[in-house]
């Protein structure tokens, strides 16, 4: 039974909600970021416009809207102007399949997860176009770094989600898994709270790490590394074009957090929303009737969803305040040598356990093993990063001390990352600095 009037109302309400959300989220997050960072850094933050400076980001937006768009003479105009739009469009599109509540879903796509991954990889095109079209060296390096980074982190991002999809097949009553976001949320609250973070904590951690890299946030903000590349691919942009990238970045944060919420934190499930869902007082996919109970239920559901999303987004801020930036090659190393193997092992182990362990214990065992793997991953990380522990001398210094103790100065080993063993291009013969 299709009620056309209801469908139209549904469409309009949801569309307005998403547009409103994307637009305000950036404003809210910029303000929140500045205030939270200020709190963590022992300072005040914005305070002049509005109560507690709450209107600061509004004024910033107004400034950006009024600002002249400056571009240098040598830019490739078509590419340069298209890039912000191409960066921003997938971000808006990605909201299509996010279930904020049973009602607040534009489209319960059966292939939601796949579409999300596809859309998130489209961003890199915009970034790369910006880097190339700017015709500036800093932008070019930023764009190249960004392309390498986003493509590399696409893989572990996707792989970390496979565990969740496998879990849905176990949880669902007919034994068929699903990559639809709506189904995944329902799976996590049926028949009791079974947020997948309890069974796949490693998946969440890796997904979140990759999300940081996908959104170019610290400590993976190399494409716009201020101290090296001025502003990376954003260097030549100004005014609203720049703001599009900015909006896109914050929209990306919102999407990464939303997807993490949907896949690992039970989506809109929470006290109140679950109760209504379990007792079937409301329909999960309203077809025509929409009662006051439905309305209250949906409001509660959206509330829980947003609480989780903003909790995750605040972790973005926390991470940014705490960590320094990785180097480009270390970033690649981390993706290819650590994250991808770990996610592959996670998939293998999860699959094997889901098949091997008999039904009543399946989830307990899988979850337990995954927690153990999470601890192992953290240990591996601190080991694999290879920094010598606090207080001990690095290996080459120890070697030098041993050599000095033997009084054999000729046998000094070259320290890592310095002159010896560095591949210089052919013909590079000079030995001392300053002159060629």
């Amino acid at each position, binding site marked *: 039974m299709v009620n056309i009037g209801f469908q139209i109302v549904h469409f309009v309400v949801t569309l307005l909600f998403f547009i409103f959300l994307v637009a305000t989220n950036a404003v809210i997050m910029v303000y929140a970021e500045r205030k939270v*960072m200020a709190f*963590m*850094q*022992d*300072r005040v933050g914005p305070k002049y416009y509005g109560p507690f400076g709450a209107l600061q980001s509004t004024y910033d937006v107004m400034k950006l809207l009024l600002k002249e768009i400056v571009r240098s003479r040598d830019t490739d105009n078509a590419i340069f102007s298209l890039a912000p739009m191409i960066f921003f469009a997938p971000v808006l599109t990605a909201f299509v399949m996010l279930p904020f509540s049973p009602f607040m879903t534009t489209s319960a796509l059966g292939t939601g997860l796949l579409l999300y991954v596809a859309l998130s990889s489209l961003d890199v095109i915009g970034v790369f176009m910006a880097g190339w079209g700017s015709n500036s*060296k*800093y932008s070019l*390096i930023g764009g190249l770094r960004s392309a390498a980074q986003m493509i590399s982190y696409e893989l572990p991002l996707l792989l970390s989600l496979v565990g969740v999809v496998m879990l849905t097949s176990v949880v669902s009553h007919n034994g068929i898994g699903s990559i639809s976001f709506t189904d995944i949320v329902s799976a996590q609250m049926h028949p009791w709270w079974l947020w997948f973070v309890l069974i796949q904590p490693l998946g969440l951690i890796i997904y979140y790490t990759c999300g940081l890299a996908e959104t170019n946030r*610290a*400590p993976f*903000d*190399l494409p716009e*590394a*201020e*101290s*090296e590349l*001025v502003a990376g691919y954003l260097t030549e942009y100004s005014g609203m074009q720049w703001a599009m990238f900015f909006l896109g970045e914050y929209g990306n944060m919102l999407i990464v957090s939303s997807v993490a919420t949907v896949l690992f934190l039970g989506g809109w499930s929470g006290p109140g929303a679950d109760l209504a869902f379990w007792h079937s007082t409301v329909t999960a996919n309203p077809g025509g009737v929409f009662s006051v109970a439905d309305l209250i239920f949906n409001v509660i559901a959206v509330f829980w969803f947003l609480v989780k999303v903003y909790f995750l987004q605040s972790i973005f801020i926390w991470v*940014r*305040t*705490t*960590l*320094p*930036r*990785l*180097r*480009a*090659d*270390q970033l690649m190393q981390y993706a290819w040598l650590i994250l991808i193997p770990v996610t592959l092992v996670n998939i293998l182990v999860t699959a094997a356990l889901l098949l091997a362990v008999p039904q009543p214990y399946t989830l307990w065992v899988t979850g337990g093993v995954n927690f153990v793997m999470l601890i192992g991953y953290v240990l591996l*990380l*601190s080991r694999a*990063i*290879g*920094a*010598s522990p*606090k207080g001990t*001398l*690095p290996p*080459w*210094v120890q070697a*030098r*001390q041993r050599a000095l103790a033997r009084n054999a100065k000729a046998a*000094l080993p070259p*320290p*890592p*990352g*310095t*002159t010896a063993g*560095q*591949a*210089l*291009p*052919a*013909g*590079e013969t000079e030995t*001392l*600095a*300053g*002159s*060629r």
Partner: protein
Amino acid sequence: MATVNEAPRYAESDEGFRTEEMILNMGPQHPSTHGVLRLVMTLEGETVVHCTPVIGYLHRGIEKILENRTYMAGIRYMDNSDYLSPMLNETAYAGAVEQLMGIEPPRRAQYLRLITNEMQRIASHLVAVGTYMLDLGAFTPILYAFRDREGLLELFEEVAGSRFNVNYMRVGGVLHDLPVGWLQRLEAWLDTFENSWKELDVLITGNEIFMKRTQGVGYIDPDQAVAFGMTGPILRASGVNFDLRVNRPYGAYRDIKVNPVVREDGDAFGRYMCRMYEMKESARLIREGMAALPGGPIGTRTPIALRPPRGETYFAIESSKGELGIYLISDGSEYPYRAKIRGPSFVNLQIVPELMRGHKMGDVVAILGSIDLVLGEVDR
């Protein structure tokens, strides 16, 4: 000589592509060159093949200005040399003039110099560590560092009348005696500083990303460090135990013994650690200086017009960046015939191209920050 305008060279890569070296001009207006240093880098991909520092964008002719000012008036211009450690600069200049004239400041003045110098060293190292972390992408430490430095600048304001360009040292002593309660406030600041030092240490030192970014980066061999004339924390981080406060003690350092911080790492991490622990050592020195602070006059009586005898002298102190030497020639008039500043930043800069070669582009800022240049002192 100059590689600035040289055409890029072409090379054949392993895959048979014809690749081109890219010349990237970093600075003088760049967020992480600590002022107006310009680095012309030849990049092979992200690897630095060649790096040429171009200096002179902040040249104000301080040496020439000194020659056109009387000895006493020149002290103020030393503030602008290494603008992160004016107290130390002034001590060097005043000390050089005193050595030229053969006078010795009274003991109280010497102790006041020690206390203010060590405070300035802490302030300078705080900026060095904070901006270094900012270069590496961590935003928080610099604000913690500046919060603590603010307390020091307030104390400077009380004692000298100015936060930054203090103009506190005089030939034969210091300008003012301490205000009432200043020592208690300094004591209180030291207590808070020791806590916030731990805070900084916890925040930065054990961080795996930070260690990964700095360990093994910009390694300087002890021999190389000596050959390039490195001084200060860079030299001591390379395992060479040389500190002018110990090896050629001046002023109150003849009474109060310094335990120099020596690290064997030789890399950027070692230099960072060296600075961190030197701050601790400086705090200890301040406490000792305060405990042993003698009474008496704060300056010798000098004639209004200082006319040192004909001759020349070289006086060096251990500045926050290294050996800060002042070379003076007097022709017997009120003005120095020649005043030459041996700025540690300038000398330390010359190893930068050597260190950069072969490193990735991300390491450029990691190395540059660990050298802790102040362009005011490089260009003068």
